[in-house]
């Protein structure tokens, strides 16, 4: 480790992985509830499990992004972090607030939680992904501001690289667009319109800047390719991301009561949205092929390549499948959406966080790379999780196509629940594959504790 303040990244990474395990456990609960509807009812109704599943996802990715930034920024800026102490204080505040929020979801009826936490003063709860109580939302803003203050000052005082500027831009965008979560007009159409300013402009906008910066950083380190080349690519990719992605928000505006011209704007620009993801894949493979050194951390290189491929498949291809308005008319809000969501989040964001952890964690533990046996186990976990996610996506896609056919397209449309019964087999298969994913994740955690065999005496 070049700078001692980089060490603050370590607790962030550990928390991220811990919350990831929680996310997958609740995913398994929900997957089972799809086929055994009364599983754990009334202790954990589906809506609670889902809230925990998606909120944990957001929070563990945020922990990962922050940890990544705390690791990367000192090295890029060539100076110590402005205040390592502040970073640690914010870590504990964020972790405790996150844990209390999850406990609140699990232990108190949602309506009581809303009452207890001031939702009547400023109602913001009960909207998908933004279910957090008002207090938690305020807490997120405070933590984000302290974090941005800390890393912005570090960057300003040190060397300014493209990677750190892009990362900073992405993180500032993340914080700014989150402010729309406080805006909840009683007009449902307006509510939905600006809700996407958080959700879409995050995952198909500013988060991709963070993704690009983290990936570029790891590629600089593991390939030894000239920084100029990598940074030029980074600019081109994120340029395409925003050029296609901002107006691409329109693909969410087809059926929620907005003017119909959004069907044109949304279709055209979101048809272009796979381009930056395709470029990301080409970029990662290109840099690894042109590598000027053999970095001993092979696992990190694998995660970097995997992020490129899986984000292209999940966000690019599976996104494109149902993004054109005439197709989306039938697929909107079906299991096709779920299939796309799963692979896109795993491929783009879960994998890039594991990529930066894979690269940085050995360094934080005082070595350039993990021992061979540990890396082999980590690579097994990579393949298990990634292949499981491919099959989860395929099974959900099959369920979705059948659902669309039975419930939306057929001459004698079936009611929702009747159609669900017809596709149950795919939900069972998805649940089984979810267990394989969990095994992969357990292996991932175990790989941190594997030591090399002592050399034979």
């Amino acid at each position: 480790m070049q700078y001692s303040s980089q060490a603050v990244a370590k607790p962030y990474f550990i928390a991220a992985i811990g919350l990831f395990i929680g996310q997958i456990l609740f995913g398994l609960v929900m997957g089972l509830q799809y086929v055994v509807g009364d599983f754990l009812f009334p202790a954990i109704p589906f809506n609670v499990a889902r809230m925990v599943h998606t909120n944990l996802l957001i929070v563990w990715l945020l922990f990962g992004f922050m940890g990544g930034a705390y690791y990367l920024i000192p090295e890029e800026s060539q100076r110590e972090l402005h205040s390592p102490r502040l970073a640690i204080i914010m870590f504990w505040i964020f972790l405790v607030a996150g844990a209390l929020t999850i406990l609140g979801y699990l232990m108190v009826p949602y309506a009581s939680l809303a009452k207890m936490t001031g939702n009547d003063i400023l109602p913001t709860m009960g909207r998908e992904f933004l279910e957090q109580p008002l207090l938690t939302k305020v807490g997120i803003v405070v933590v984000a501001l302290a974090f941005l203050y800390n890393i912005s000052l570090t960057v300003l005082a040190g060397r300014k690289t493209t990677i750190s500027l892009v990362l900073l831009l992405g993180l500032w965008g993340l914080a700014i667009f989150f402010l729309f979560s406080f805006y909840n007009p009683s007009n449902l159409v307006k509510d939905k319109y600006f809700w996407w300013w958080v959700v879409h402009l995050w995952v198909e906008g500013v988060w991709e800047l963070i993704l690009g910066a983290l990936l570029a950083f790891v590629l600089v380190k593991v390939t030894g390719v000239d920084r100029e080349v990598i940074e030029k690519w980074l600019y081109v990719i994120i340029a395409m991301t925003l050029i296609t992605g901002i107006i691409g928000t329109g693909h969410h505006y087809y059926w929620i009561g907005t003017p119909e011209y959004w069907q044109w704007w949304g279709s055209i620009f979101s048809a272009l949205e796979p381009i930056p993801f395709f470029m990301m894949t080409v970029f990662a493979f290109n840099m690894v092929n042109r590598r000027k050194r053999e970095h001993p951390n092979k696992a990190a290189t694998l995660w970097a390549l995997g992020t490129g491929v899986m984000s292209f498949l999940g966000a690019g291809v599976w996104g494109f499948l149902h993004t054109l308005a005439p197709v989306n008319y039938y697929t909107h809000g079906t299991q096709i959406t779920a299939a796309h969501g799963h692979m896109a989040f795993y491929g783009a964001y879960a994998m890039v966080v594991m990529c930066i952890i894979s690269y940085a964690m050995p360094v934080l533990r005082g070595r350039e790379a993990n021992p061979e046996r540990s890396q082999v186990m980590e690579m097994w976990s990579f393949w298990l999780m990634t292949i499981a996610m491919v099959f989860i996506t395929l099974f959900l896609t099959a369920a979705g196509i059948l659902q669309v056919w039975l419930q939306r397209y057929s001459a004698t449309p079936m009611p929702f629940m009747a159609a669900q019964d017809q596709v149950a087999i795919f939900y069972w298969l998805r649940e089984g594959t979810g267990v394989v994913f969990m095994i992969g994740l357990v292996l991932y955690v175990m790989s941190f504790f594997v030591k090399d065999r002592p050399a034979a005496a």
Partner: protein
Amino acid sequence: MSGTFTKSTARNIFYGGAVFFFLLFLALTFDTVQTLPKHDNSANLTEQVVRGKHIWETRNCIGCHTLLGEGAYFAPELGNVYVRRGPDFIKGWIKAQPTGAPGRRQMPQFNLSEGELDDLVAFLKYASEINTAKWPPNIEG
């Protein structure tokens, strides 16, 4: 390529493109908000509907259902449930939960008062009258 297409060219495309398309997005948003009253049924946005939306949100209905296609995919679409089922069925259904049928998906009992049930129904009626460009394709949502 590397001779003419430099890093600063790429950077300029990024900043120029981002600013241009964000401004275009703002312009489209401005136009959308201006013309929204023609589509969004806001003329019928009564106090009762507002109360109904609050109940919808504080019971986290979106955690199982979709509304205009957004939400969870565990339970039926409710954007058009008022048209599909009518007010009395909706109220009766909510009051009868959970069904307790073994192995079936369960909806929690929210203990809503008669007034709250009316508010929620008013919200669902208002939602069903939003002009959604003929979505969903049929009454089953």
